[in-house]
């Protein structure tokens, strides 16, 4: 599944009088091809997380449209859009992202539980893949930053989504786990998924097919892997 953004722009109103408007993402076209890893990097506050959220269907753009294989994402009503996200989009948020009342295994299978499905085997497989199998019964407040990050990635990938968004996915990880995560994302791309990573880590560049940079809301392409 490919994701295509058409003339999207995102503004935030910073005061109640509509006088102070921040353009987080300037008008742009953007494509996340299926089977490729796309990386966006940029300084803090450059608008890359906002762009990622707009593309992931969790933040309406001020202008423009986002198409998933030609389907207008934001034309869907909330219930349908949410169901679509649950089935087709994996999202790894920045920072701590655990539901504190659930243990690791329950967190990983939460995307299934939200729709009354039992995703135990898929969840166990993911915990195995990201080295947190032994932590299945542990509560999130007992995990390290790295373990939490691996749990969030396992949860994002548990439904084997066709589009994956990762906001600083390797931020809290050591070299070994960084490699595991990036290898996994690369592998998913090889299997046909469209992967978008927003990161500061230069190591991610080596896994990227296309690299973009963002500066003050403006997106520009830096490089493209040949072939």
């Amino acid at each position, binding site marked *: 599944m490919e994701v295509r953004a058409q003339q999207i722009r995102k503004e935030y109103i910073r005061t109640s009088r509509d006088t102070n408007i921040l353009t987080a993402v300037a008008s742009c076209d953007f494509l996340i091809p299926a089977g490729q890893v796309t990386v966006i990097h940029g300084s803090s506050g450059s608008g890359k997380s906002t762009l990622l959220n707009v593309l992931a269907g969790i933040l309406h753009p001020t202008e423009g449209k986002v198409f998933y294989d030609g389907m207008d994402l934001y034309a869907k009503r909330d219930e349908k859009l949410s169901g679509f996200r649950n089935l087709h989009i994996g999202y790894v948020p920045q920072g*701590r992202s655990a539901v504190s009342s659930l243990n690791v295994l329950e967190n990983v299978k939460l995307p299934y539980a939200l729709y009354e499905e*039992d995703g135990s085997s898929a969840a166990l497989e993911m915990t195995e893949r990201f080295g947190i199998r032994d932590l299945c019964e542990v509560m999130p407040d007992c995990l390290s930053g790295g373990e939490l990050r691996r749990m969030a990635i396992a949860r994002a990938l548990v439904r084997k989504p066709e589009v994956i968004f990762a906001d600083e996915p390797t931020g809290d990880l050591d070299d070994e786990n960084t490699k595991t995560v990036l290898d996994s994302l690369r592998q998913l791309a090889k299997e046909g998924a469209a992967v978008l990573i927003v990161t500061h880590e230069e190591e991610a560049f080596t896994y990227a097919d296309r690299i973009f940079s963002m500066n003050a809301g403006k997106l520009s392409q830096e490089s493209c892997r040949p072939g």
Partner: protein
Amino acid sequence: MTNLRHLIIRNLVRRPVRSIALCLLAAVLSAVILAGTCTVQSLDRGFQSMEMRLGADLMVVPYAAVSRKNFDNAILLGNAGEFYMPGEHADRIAGMEGVEKVSSQFCLTVAETDYCDVPVSLMAYDPRSDFTLKPWILESDGEDKAGTGAVIGSRIDAKIGDSLSFFGTEVKVSARLDRSDTDCDTAVYMDRETIQNIADTSGDAAFGERVRAYDGKAVSSIMIDVKDGYDVESVRNDINIHIKKVRAVQSQHVLTQAASGMGGVSGGVRTLMAAVWAVCAGVMAAVLLFETRERRREFALLRIMGASGRRVSRIVCGEVLSVCCLGAAGGTVAGLLLVLTGTGRIEQWLSLPFLLPDTAHMIGTVLFSLLLPVVSGAAAAVFAAGRISAKEAGILLREEE
């Protein structure tokens, strides 16, 4: 954990302070609403009961017997006590202008018995002239509803046809009065023949002396029905002027005073209920708003994973409704216990007739006290959930950062 219900339970268990606090709020609200509503309804019913019982327009009792306060109280509670005046007063009053009917009663004694948990008043009355007890007879062994024998109040533990022992003499129960929540409930009324029979067969000298006094026409109270077209106050003044050492009081006057007192108590209870409801609902809304704000990131994560705004609302409302239902059930049970065990104390404290609502009203009150905290909690939850689910996950994440 395989569904939203489990997630709701986990969230409640993992946040015990919040869960218990909401549960307690709902319980307090339920208990106060139940006890308060029952109190107001009981006062209303007690007052109606008293109004019906006071079939007399005027009541005359010995002047020196009691203070003004106790006097009104005595009328309200249906017993003037062991104070006496000459029985001939009844004949004189019966002959006065404007008087339709006269019926006297005589309090023989107040005694501890095996068949009632409080002291029982033994009252002598005249079934032929009585017009205040007859309307209250619930069941009797005769067609005229009040033959010879004992007419017992509702709290006397006996059935029609049973025999009660008075000073060693057995007296058959001939009629039972309906519940009035006044001293009538713990009184036994007997006609002259029955009392004479007890006096003749018992060896109790003091009781014999009392009966002789009654026989010599001493009375404790005289009930008066005023003829239509006559001013009750004028008849009362006539009695107070022409008959010495008695006091005639208009029942309506006492009722008005009682109604005023009851109105004050009912108003106070209603204000208390409204205040408790406002505080509980306000605190619930504040707790939920604060808490949903604290949990923005968690709700954003759920949205990211594919939970719609409606699903997130279901989680918030499910959590609140679960604890509110639990709290309301506990509070209702506590309120019921309070009402059922504290009726006597409340009546004593208020010095007003207090008659618990009938079963249908009680069921209605219980349902209301169960529903109000749940509805209040649901409204607060919908408000809080609405605020959080109206925001996009991207905005929630941004606010959190």
